[in-house]
């Protein structure tokens, strides 16, 4: 049902639109991939050598920036300007990495990494990876990429999601949606998608740096996430480090240099991968420079080293089953490179009492699901497309008196969601209050992640407890939060879109983007104008056809106002100024919202009558 447009095939506003190109991007800790759905099949886009995975590694050299395999080669020559696994640092604070022996931080207040060409933030590194993926994909597509679905670990908090969005913005990629990785995998598998009977699916996703578990209910094209859990700092990297530490301890290197650590880490990764198929591996250690010439590691000793990490993932699985209100699932699928390990597969099988499915490549499945969804979100959808209902992984709340957290939106709430709670003042004559937004499950503020803080002022002096402040939380379909506070008596308002505390400042992004635009020149302006016009004309056409059908939903004044705004937009279109067209489109959009909402209410009545009829039929069939 179109709210403003008449949704007949070939109707105005639909007819002349060309097919847009959407891509799916799996921005991983270890490897990143880009995939596309060409209308018939899903394909993961490979590089010149036929490799689909691009190592999430960036080398910032004085003369050039290398991404992927070439950067990895630079790293193996021992260059410390090569950054890997930076996804772990997205949206995090500097304090969390100060004691990490495997990273070298640049000096300063922000979380940034040392390179030959100066400090680089995790957001910039991710942007370099995204830009390289886009560059890889574009030559093989029929046109420019309109937008991308970028996957994130389901357990990413608000700050980590915001940082991912910023990275895309820096890379010049329009984000159609941030999609949770396990949900993307479920879409790619598409099991029981069209079945009338509902079934439960568990997705166990253990990657290089993150772990997620999601429990989904699937029925007739609906993918409903019932619960999700995980750890956004647990993955194959931890296995590598545990093994590297073990190797270093065996060689008698009590205080290894950072170069030795890097070598040990690389050896550990080789050993781990070899142990997926072999029972024991012997690795030569001369590069380490210790006293031991070589070391033999058995699969069993690796499994003992990583057992505590695997147990952590199983705890999260049990909690998610409980949150979903079930003891077991009908199927469980494995996603992420670390699920290739026999110990992981066995642990999952024991936990769910099921043999896990891994028929799709665990490295590619997330990008494939994202591409499928991207095709829908650019508007190339048919009637029976899948609908994803995802949840927020962690509760959102506010700091209240005494440093306690008052939860406003519970974890596992389906998004988009909005909820408000009423608060009051604690002291007589208090005229302002601080709204401190936090995310997490713990009772005390210091145990949760702080997302944002803002002040509401202008409350008239009253006795304690008399003011009524309504705080509204809104989480959009990307899982990103917006908070507003309003004093009910006076209407004093304050609101924020929660900005990542540890990402880039708005100004920094604007500067970086400007530097990029200067190269783009006139092409860019022409494209911008074209896009703005198409959007404006489609909106006007939509409103006209909606008016033809449901004119009675507006009063005469409302109608006159709407027509006035349409006139202004038409003038802006004639003037060929993209910024003015955008501005007027936005204004017309705002003023037509009430009309669209009323049309929606009318169609809801129709939809509900449909349900009532189905119920009646079901009863008749039963009797």
């Amino acid at each position, binding site marked *: *049902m*179109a*709210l*403003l*447009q008449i949704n007949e095939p070939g109707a105005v506003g639909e007819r002349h*639109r060309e097919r847009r190109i959407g891509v799916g991007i799996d921005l991983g800790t270890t490897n990143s991939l880009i995939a596309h759905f060409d209308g018939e099949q899903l394909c993961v886009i490979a590089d010149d050598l036929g490799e689909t995975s691009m190592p999430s590694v960036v080398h910032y050299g004085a003369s050039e920036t290398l991404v992927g395999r070439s950067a990895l080669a630079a790293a193996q020559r021992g260059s410390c300007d090569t950054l890997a696994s930076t996804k772990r640092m997205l949206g995090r604070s500097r304090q969390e990495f100060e004691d990490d022996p495997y990273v070298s931080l640049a000096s300063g207040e922000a979380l940034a990494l040392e390179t030959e060409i100066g400090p680089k933030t995790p957001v910039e590194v991710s942007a370099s990876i995204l830009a390289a993926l886009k560059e890889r994909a574009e030559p093989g597509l029929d046109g420019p990429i309109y937008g991308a679905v970028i996957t994130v670990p389901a357990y990413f908090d608000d700050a980590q999601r915001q940082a991912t969005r910023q990275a895309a913005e820096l890379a010049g990629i329009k984000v*159609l949606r941030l999609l949770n990785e396990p949900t993307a995998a479920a879409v790619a598998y598409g099991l029981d998608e069209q079945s009338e009977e509902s079934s439960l699916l568990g997705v166990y996703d253990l990657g290089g740096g993150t772990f997620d578990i999601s429990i989904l209910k699937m*029925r007739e*094209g*609906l993918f409903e996430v019932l619960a999700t859990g995980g750890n956004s700092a647990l993955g194959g990297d931890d296995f590598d480090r545990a093994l590297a530490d073990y190797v270093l301890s065996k060689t008698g290197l009590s205080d290894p240099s950072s170069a030795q650590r890097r070598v040990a880490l690389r050896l550990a990764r080789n050993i781990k991968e070899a142990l997926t198929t072999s029972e024991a591996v012997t690795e030569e250690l001369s590069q380490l420079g210790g006293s031991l010439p070589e070391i033999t590691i058995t699969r069993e000793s690796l499994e003992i080293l990583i057992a505590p990490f695997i147990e952590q993932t199983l705890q*999260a699985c*049990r*909690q998610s089953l*409980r949150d979903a209100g079930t003891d077991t699932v009908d199927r469980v699928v494995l996603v992420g490179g670390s699920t290739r390990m026999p110990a992981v597969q066995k642990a999952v099988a024991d936990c769910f009492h099921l043999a896990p499915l891994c028929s799709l490549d665990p490295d590619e499945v997330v990008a494939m699901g994202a591409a499928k969804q991207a095709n*829908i*979100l650019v*508007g*190339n959808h048919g009637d029976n497309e899948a*609908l*994803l*209902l995802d949840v927020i992984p962690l509760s959102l709340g506010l700091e209240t008196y005494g440093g306690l957290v008052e939860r*406003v939106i519970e974890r596992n*709430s*389906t*998004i*988009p*969601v*909005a*909820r*408000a*709670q*009423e608060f009051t003042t604690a002291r007589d004559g208090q005229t302002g209050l601080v709204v401190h937004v936090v995310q997490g*499950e713990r009772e005390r503020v210091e145990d949760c992640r702080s997302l944002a803080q803002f002040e509401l002022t202008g409350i008239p002096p009253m006795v304690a407890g008399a003011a009524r402040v*309504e705080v*509204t939380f*809104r989480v*959009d*379909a990307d899982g990103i939060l917006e908070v*507003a506070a*309003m004093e009910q008596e006076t209407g004093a308002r304050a609101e924020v879109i929660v900005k990542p505390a540890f990402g880039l400042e708005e100004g920094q992004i604007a500067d970086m983007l400007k530097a990029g635009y200067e190269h783009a020149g006139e092409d860019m302006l022409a494209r911008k104008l074209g896009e703005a016009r198409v*959007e404006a004309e*489609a*909106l006007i056409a*939509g409103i006209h056809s909606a008016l033809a059908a449901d004119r009675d939903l507006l009063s005469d004044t409302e109608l006159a106002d709407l027509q006035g705004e349409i006139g202004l937009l038409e003038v802006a279109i004639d003037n060929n100024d993209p910024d003015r067209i955008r501005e007027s489109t*936005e204004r017309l*959009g*705002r003023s*037509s*919202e009430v009309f*669209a*909402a009323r049309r*929606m209410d009318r*169609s*809801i009545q129709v*939809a*509900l009558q*449909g*349900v*009532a009829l189905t*119920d009646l039929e079901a009863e008749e069939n039963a009797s």
Partner: protein
Amino acid sequence: MRLRREFHGLIVSANPGVPARDYFSLFNIEPGMSLDEKALERTYHTLLSQFHPDRYAGKSAVEQRVAAQFCADVNSGYRTLRNEVTRAEYLLKSVGVDLHAAEREGVDAGFLMTQITLRERLEDTPATDKESRRALTEEITEHYHCSRDRCARSIAASDWSEAARAWQEMCFLWKLLDAAQPAEH
């Protein structure tokens, strides 16, 4: 002594300045405690299948915004009505019962004793003793059903103060049932 409030939250529309939708009429069901959960879920799915913002992908920003606001209401409504404790709270609030005042009044002394005893017995039963845990969980569930039925009857009879008392008992017992399950965190 009074029970700590575990379930609350003023429900508002996702759209500021517009009065909140009534959840029962949103899902086309009669207001009351008894409710066909299957039908509720079916209506929920029907509404989202048709009006989810993703269904307006590629359409104007207005349509996506209106759809997102509507879905936020649908999601909040479903979450509220699906659970009996929040459903009761919603029913009581929507007829203007002051639950804060009810809490200050508290529950009656008999229930207070019952809940203290149940809590103590739960603390004394180790999670490893699965048989005793199960028996205790069943006993708590029975108490919960009893309070829930009383709440439902009182709401039907418009006896709001009795309904508010029964609702507080439901909150407490629900919380206790949750604690009786082994936690993973």
